[in-house]
């Protein structure tokens, strides 16, 4: 069932513009014939860095990166990381909360089905046959035991005939 938008998007277009639950950003339109950027846990190094066009400040930081790295401050390292990568591993692994929507949807439809069943029982079903009355069912059980129905491992096997009670 195409309940998820992800599934719908996959069917509706050939480009890779996919919104994802909790990851609010929309990735760029993808042309598969040129090197692409991606955020994937199992392929951590994409074909190209995230930021294509760098500002002058960024370019000078990139030059500084070619020197010893212990000259870089923490903010500079972070800025360099964010130039090359869009999401960190922690952000990629972040739980989406999609399960709550799925479970909620399941419960909703089960509940709706329950309402349909109740309505059906009240408005559609004919009255029970008299063989489902408690008195009839009790007599039926007695008759099944008297006739020794399934006496090996089944019904009558569970009745203690000497004591007159279920085992």
């Amino acid at each position: 069932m195409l309940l998820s938008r992800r599934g719908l998007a996959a069917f509706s277009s050939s480009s890779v513009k996919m919104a994802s639950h909790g990851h609010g950003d929309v990735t760029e339109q993808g042309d598969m014939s040129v090197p692409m950027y991606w955020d994937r846990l199992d392929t951590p190094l994409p074909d190209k860095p995230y930021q294509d066009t760098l500002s002058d400040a960024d370019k000078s930081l990139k030059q500084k990166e070619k020197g010893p790295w212990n000259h870089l401050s923490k903010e500079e390292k972070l800025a360099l990381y964010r130039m090359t990568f869009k999401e960190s591993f922690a952000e990629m692994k972040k739980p989406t909360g999609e399960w709550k929507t799925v479970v909620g949807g399941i419960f909703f439809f089960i509940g709706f089905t329950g309402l349909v069943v109740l309505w059906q029982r009240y408005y559609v079903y004919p009255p029970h046959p008299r063989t489902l009355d408690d008195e009839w069912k009790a007599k039926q059980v007695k008759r099944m035991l008297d006739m020794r129905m399934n006496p090996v491992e089944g019904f009558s096997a569970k009745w203690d005939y000497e004591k007159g009670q279920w085992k």
Partner: protein
Amino acid sequence: MAHPAQMGFQDAATPVMEELLHFHDHALMIVYLISTMVFYIIVAMVTTELTNKYILDSQEIEIMWTALPAIILVLIAMPSIRVLYLMDEINDPHLTIKAMGHQWYWSYEYTDYENLTFDSYMTPTQDLTPGQFRLLETDHRMVVPTDAPIRVLVSAEDVLHSWAVPSLGVKMDAVPGRLNQTAFIASRAGVFYGQCSEICGANHSFMPIVVEAVPLEHFEIWTAMMMEDV
């Protein structure tokens, strides 16, 4: 008959049904084992965070998951064929009864010695006495002696029916213009219920079969009584 919400088979009343029960236990256990293993593998695949992108040849596992299923199938087939041939054994019946399907009742003919023929109609729900089984009781039961090989020749007078009694391990299609043979030996006395098992019209669900297995003396008393009535 089955009790409410019964999930498994009814107790066997013939040796063949007993063998079928045991075979079913065997095959079902294999099914449970395979299903548990597959379910475990699915859960393991779905919940892992590991990815292997470099699987190429896998000769050993391919051999395993080809050979092992073949062996399992042989282990299922061997008892299955055994029961199948057991059901077809020549059994030198003591009694032959013809069960004829009509729309919508069965008729039974005991013509080995005398000419005993009677119809067996379902007892309508409004005519049941308290405690009787709805849609299963008939006005006349097919009475047979216990511990005697019985041959039943099943046919039909109009459309397709099927003569089935689960606790005897018997089901045979009733085809107009054709005689189908089935056989059983009732190992214990009792009353065994079944229902028509081939769609045959409006009252297909309302033409049950009741077989009553009694010791031989009682069978002879019953036939004498039936001959008087007819």
